[in-house]
């Protein structure tokens, strides 16, 4: 069944945290963390049945506090981390923890729905010396032994031992600057043996080398206001995309930090999240507090720029094929604008399993699962 209509799933609470279950490559799975100060927070494990266009869910309790950031292990599909807010009467602290889903999706589902299971805590990721935790990143290419956390103004690397349930901080580095610079977001470069990450604070984007824990590059004034999200191109080295409060999405080549490669200005308010499609990196998703999700096709900066970059490497057999394509040269531009949300959309992510499915989450707890329009899909495939 190839229905183009979006599937909407409503959470009871407000929510900001969404991630694709990166370790699961067969089923379309997402995990969502809720934000509620006064109620018990939950982690929703969402399964999207592509055939029947139906959503199944498992709800787990997250007793520690409201979830600000969630990320799933790239190898072990049961592992995930959350950054949560622990509030007491007079103070609120952001902490991080490593969790394990209680069991396989279908097993859990068969059980009674009335009372939710809790997530199994493996260990806390302690970074309290460095301030509030912003986010946790898993190693992009499947090394499960360490994760990187982003504290207020520090980058922290933990060695984790999932079996033994412990995490040991192995290294960290600080960020110096005027005022009190605070990290907002980060991305782990999947290229070069995954030894680089990039972080953003205020209007800067910085690159770090994990081996030396030193800064390698900095893009000053990447956006005219706060940078909200960055993402590396999964298929093309050095390329990354960023978004921010200036309503723009910008593409960068980190070897040339003076000028952005391209600027998209399709949103009418802050852009909170931007994601490369893991398979077809010309597809760019961005979400904004103007409550829109926009899918862009940026062919010219992708790893498959038809017509100019791959020509020489291609086999001759492909010539005819390419000629056909060139007869109507594909243009960069917006593919679709999704307006199913009523509130600010803080996160968006592609499915890890299906290259054409993505989920977006708005503050009012509405999760929308959409597909890339079929016409566009065929254009890319054929």
């Amino acid at each position, binding site marked *: 069944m190839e229905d183009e209509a979006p599937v909407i799933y409503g959470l009871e*609470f407000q929510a900001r945290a969404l991630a694709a279950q990166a370790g699961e490559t067969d089923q379309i799975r997402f995990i969502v963390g809720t934000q509620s100060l006064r109620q018990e927070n939950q982690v929703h494990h969402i399964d999207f049945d592509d055939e029947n266009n139906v959503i199944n869910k498992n709800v787990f309790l997250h007793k520690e506090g409201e979830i600000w950031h969630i990320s799933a292990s790239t190898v072990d599909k049961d592992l995930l981390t959350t950054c949560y807010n622990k509030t007491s009467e*007079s103070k*609120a602290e952001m902490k991080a923890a490593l969790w394990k889903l209680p069991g396989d999706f279908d097993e859990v589902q068969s059980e009674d729905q009335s009372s939710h299971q809790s997530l199994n805590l493996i260990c806390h990721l302690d970074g309290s010396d460095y301030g509030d935790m912003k986010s946790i990143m898993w190693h992009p290419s499947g090394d499960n032994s360490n994760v990187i956390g982003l504290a207020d103004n520090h980058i922290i690397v933990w060695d984790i031992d999932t079996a033994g349930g412990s995490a040991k901080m192995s290294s960290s580095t600080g960020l110096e600057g005027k005022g009190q610079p605070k990290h907002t977001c980060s991305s782990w470069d999947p290229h070069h043996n995954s030894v680089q990450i990039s972080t953003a604070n205020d209007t800067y984007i910085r690159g770090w080398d994990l081996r030396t824990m030193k800064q390698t590059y900095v893009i000053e004034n990447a956006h005219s206001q706060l940078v909200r999200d960055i993402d590396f191109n999964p298929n093309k080295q050095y390329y990354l995309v960023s978004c921010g409060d200036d309503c723009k999405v910008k593409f960068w080549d980190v070897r040339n930090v003076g000028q952005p490669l391209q600027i998209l200005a399709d949103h009418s308010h802050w852009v909170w999240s931007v994601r490369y499609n893991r398979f077809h990196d010309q597809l760019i998703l961005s979400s904004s507090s103007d409550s829109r999700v926009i899918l862009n096709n940026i062919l010219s900066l992708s790893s498959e720029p038809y017509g100019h970059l791959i020509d020489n490497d291609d086999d001759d057999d492909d010539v005819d094929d390419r000629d056909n394509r060139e007869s109507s040269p594909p243009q960069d531009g917006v593919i679709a604008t999704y307006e199913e949300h009523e509130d600010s959309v803080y996160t968006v992510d592609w499915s890890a399993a299906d290259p054409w499915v993505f989920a977006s989450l708005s503050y009012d707890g509405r999760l929308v699962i959409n597909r890339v329009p079929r016409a566009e899909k065929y254009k890319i495939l054929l």
Partner: protein
Amino acid sequence: MLKMYYGLDEDKAGGASLDPCDIDGAHFKPDLYLGKLIQEKSLTELMDKESEMLRQIRSLDSDMQTLVYENYNKFISATDTIRKMKNDFRKMEDEMDHLASNMSRITVFSSNISHTLQDRRQNITKLAGVHSLLKKLQFLFELPARLKKCIEMKAYSQAVRYYTKSQQVLHQYQHMPSFQGINSDCSKIIKELTQNLKQQFRDKESTPKQLAECVDLLLQLHEPAEELCEEFLEHARQKLDCDIQELQHQINLLKNVNKTSETAPPSYLDTPMDVLEFVDCGCNGFLSNMCLVIASYNDMFLNRQQGSEDIDSIAVKKLVIFVNTLMELYFNAVQERVHIEKETGDNTLLVRALDRFHRRLQAMNKLLPDTDFSRAGTNIVSKAAQDRVNHYLESLKQHFTDCLTDIRQNLASPRLANKQEQSVNLTELLGNIQVTTLEQVKSVLINLQVFIASDITFAMKPYFRGPFCTHGVREGLVVSYIKMITDMCQDFCEGTSTPPPALLLILSRLCSDYESSTISYLITLTEEQFDMDPHVEVTSVSELCVNIKQTAQNLLSHYVKVQGLAISQMLRKSVETRDWLNTIEPRNVRAVMKRVVEDITSIDSLVGQLYEEGIKKERSSDSSRRAHSYSYASQQRRGQWNFTPSIDNSLMSNIQKLFSEKIEIFSTVEFSKVSVLTGIIKISLKTFMECVRLRIFGRYGLQQIQVDTYYLQLYLWRFVSDENLVQVLLDEIVCSTVHRCLDPSMMEPSVIELICERG
């Protein structure tokens, strides 16, 4: 009788000759006649016949006797005459014999004489020949001396004449030693002569007439014409080069002066000529010399009858090459000079100079019909015109930039001094920039009109006028200027530079004014002043208008963004830096809110100066009504929360959103005050909300937000087009705050009111 007889005979013979019975006939047969007579006639008749016949015989006899007698006399006289004649002839014969003998004697004598004289005659002719030869030889022997004398007397032409006369002879008898001597002498002298002539030819001081004579003589001396041409041109070139160098010198002088003008005032002697003088100098010096050269060259080498065809053509070619190279140099010089002129301001002088230059070239063109200098000249003129246009465009641009700088300064200075004053001058500034830019353009147009004044020759040429008016003035100047303004303004929107917001506002207004009237006015003015050809493809007014309209829109949007951002930044800082969990119970509206309202008020007054009010959706005369409904609404909401604290709170806002329109935060603004302010307020409040959502609030934190939002509500409604909008946004802020609050207990509306009124 004889006669008769003969006659009868004749008749018989002629007429009835055949009749044998005709007695007079030739065939008369007497027997037949007699028998017939006897047979036919009677006796009497016979008798009669016989008697008649007898009578006739008798008369015939007598006639015969008479005739014989008569003829006898005649024979006698004839014999006499013949005898006499015989005598005479004999005498004559003697005479003749005498004559013949005389004649033969004469012949003998004359032959004798001629025989004796023959030798002498030959001698004489020989002598005469020798004489003339000797004369010639003498001339030849004297020739070197003569030639020398001639050369001494500078009578070169005579010398040449002598030489050419004798040359052939000398050449012929070259083999004889004496002649050879003469010949070599002569050639030496002639060489000297040639040398002299060449000397004279090369001499800078010699006049063209002298030159022409020299060339003439040299040609007669069979000097190769080609070389002469070359030499002549070489010679001419030196002179012309001098001229050009002079021109170049002037240019350098001017350049140096321009360079050093600040440091040292140039001495009087070194004062460079102005452009008119320069061109005059060029015309009088270089061009007239050039004309002279061409004319004399024509006289010397081209208009000769004897010159062979190919020499002519070579000569012409040489001349053309020569002239072309020199003219090129000259053109370069003029171009450079005119180019320098760009920096200075005087147009009329330049135009006059160009005109003179152009006219002069045309004259030159007539002289040398093969080449077309007027084209090159016109190119220079058009180039100069184009330069002027570019220069003016540059100065207009400069002026515009200056205006902007002025405005910036104006905007910057009073802000420090006095806030009241600042609000007054915005309209003035706008007026100023409008008037001055317009004036500037007008004056430039007037300046440029000089180029097409009717007394200027080149202005009348269609190939100058058309492009100049259309491409130069209209497209190159006016349209470019407008585009330049558009681009510059556009840069303010996109560039990383941060112009003062008020400047954006002024520019936006300027652009929209341009769109509504100024552009069409300028274009019409230009077209009138430069009477354009309407058929030429040009940038249309509407296109310019659309562009500048878009720019005005962008500027205004940018203004809204910038101002919205400024206020947003204030709000964000205030939300982010405060510890909302541990705040004390609100006693006051936070200072930042007052600041926000103050800023928005001042923005309002600024925008109000330049833009009209715009339409508001529903206007309420006092704020209390809104305040009341607001407090009512919040009361209601609070009640709900108090009673059902466990129910999902987002439901409330969701329902609310269903009924209210979606709010476009960075939507396009209209050209009205209300729209602009609505935009700014929307941006600010949205930021406020997003910031609130990122925080956690304690009870008093929530209450502080309540107070703040109420305060904002109290003051902001009057600025916006739709009060509901502010209401909705503020409600959402409070609502979000409630969500983010650990202990959501609301403040009493009455207390809020009290606090706000006190503040």
